């Protein structure tokens, strides 16, 4: 049995996400900086969507809006039809930067969501399962400064997964991993997603990763980000990187992203 499957308690509902005409801008030293430009996006319950786009185009900003950490200037974000106004543990964001709490051990970092909601005493086993999912059992008692960059990223992933989210928002969660660990983590993510059925929104720089994991790949333009195009990937999993269709699709997507990206 895959380590991922241990984290499954019971099948649960997943949520639909609706992004309607969202535009957002920042104030950068008195300068108006438009970041998102009229984004329209629907994600079906249980769907796995990947977002691709050039650096600095606004992908992390979009995830922060979906998480409820910020409100958009224009437009609305809906979770199962209800407006997203504040963060909620049913939507968990794995940040681009691991941001582990340096004063907590890895175990306590992973446990923090359960602890905050008073669920820890009943669910200690979940912490152990999440740690073994990301292969950090041996580092449960280590402090964040004792981890490598990739290990910290995996700990952050475990900290999210332990909460059993309905909507999982992933901001380049595997960016710092070597290709082997990365592959293993991708497989774990897919099997977890298949078993649990949460809705997933993944930001990545890696076209191949998007093709291996997602049902749908959305390509964003340079800042301010607009949706340029999207690709449906109607292939059964597990997928092979050398699958002829996927290789072909990869070329197409890279061409869409432009020469900057490869």
């Amino acid at each position: 049995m895959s380590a991922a499957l241990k984290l499954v308690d019971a099948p649960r509902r997943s949520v639909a996400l609706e992004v309607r005409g969202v535009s957002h801008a920042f104030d950068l030293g008195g300068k108006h900086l438009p970041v998102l430009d009229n984004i329209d996006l629907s994600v079906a319950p249980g769907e796995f969507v990947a977002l691709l786009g050039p650096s600095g185009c606004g992908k992390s900003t979009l995830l922060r809006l979906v998480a409820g950490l910020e409100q958009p200037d224009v437009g609305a974000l809906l979770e199962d039809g209800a407006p997203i106004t504040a963060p909620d543990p049913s939507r968990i964001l794995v940040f681009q930067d691991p941001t582990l709490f340096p004063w907590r051990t890895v175990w306590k970092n992973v446990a923090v969501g359960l602890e905050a909601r008073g669920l820890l005493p009943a669910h200690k086993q979940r912490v152990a399962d999440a740690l073994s999912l990301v292969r950090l059992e041996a580092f449960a008692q280590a402090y964040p400064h004792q981890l490598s960059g990739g290990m910290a990223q995996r700990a952050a992933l475990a900290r999210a997964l332990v909460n059993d989210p309905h909507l999982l928002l992933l901001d380049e969660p595997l960016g710092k991993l070597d290709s082997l660990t990365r592959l293993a983590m991708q497989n774990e993510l897919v099997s977890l997603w298949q078993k649990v059925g949460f809705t997933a929104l993944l930001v990545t720089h890696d076209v191949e990763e998007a093709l291996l994991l997602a049902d749908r790949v959305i390509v964003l333009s340079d800042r301010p980000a607009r949706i340029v195009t999207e690709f449906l990937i109607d292939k059964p999993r597990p997928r092979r990187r050398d699958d002829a269709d996927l290789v072909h699709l990869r070329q197409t997507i890279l061409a869409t992203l432009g020469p900057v990206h490869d």
Partner: protein
Amino acid sequence: MSDIAQGGAVRTVASVPIWRDGVAAAAAWFVAAIVTVATPDVVPWGSTPLWAEILTGGAVLLLVLSGTVQWLGRVGRVVVHYGPWLVALGVWFAVWEVVTAKTGWLPKPFFSPPQGLLHVYLVDTTRLGLCVLFSLRLWAYGFGSGVIAGFLVGVALGWSKRFAYWGMPILKLIGPVPATAWIPCTFFILPTTFSASVFLVALASGIPVAILTASGVGSVNRAFYDVARTLGASERFLVWRVAVPASLPHVFVGLFMGLYYSFAVLVVAEMLGAKYGLGWYLQFQTGYSAYANVYATLVIMALLTSGLVKLLFVTRDRVLSWQKGII
């Protein structure tokens, strides 16, 4: 700490089985003992023979250590590290003895030979002991309440905009006033001298803790809050499980400052109104020109205060062990 492991041990113990600094120290202590008993005092001081016996005992112990220190492990390495200090101490005892008791260059009553201090400890043990306890009690009440209040105020100031709006200007205004400046009115307003002293010590230690806690809580990386909020943290959790632990390094800086201020204010407060305590004892003995008692008290104070500082260092290293490698 690693320098202790190296200092001296390799140089002397490994190559020669005799610890040379130890022999030199034993010689110095022995000379000090001889000077103490074999030459007459210009003015008589009590406890001279006992002091010479203590010095001789120290010399014998050092001589024994010279041959055995390499088998004493960690303790032995610490002793070896302080070898030069032990030599200097012996020389210092001899010189001190000569310039005070033996020649009178530094005259009575303003100066005292080492046996003068020893005599004070032997004769005035009970009163000194009581004074230590009274001072410690005052310090514990004052520092304890000041630190707790300062910490809570600091968290509130750093967290709540409303609280900061009203509290920050007040803290900025009265914070820089030395706590001793409040002495005239506190002794007048508060019902007892003791409560006034506690208040002053609390004020001195609380203000730096409040200021640094507030700045610590205010400068916590926003990303920590974002992470905690997406994971379902309540406001309470954000304060006590994110803001407070993240700002502890700042809080400890405040604690150290508060600790030093608390000593200063404690002694002054005791000098002004108390009936017991080391500050009072200093004042009282100065009035009788009993400077040997004054020096004896200063030694006790040095040991007590440096002990408390050391205790705070140990506590900080424990509490902030997660920081190792970060700073």
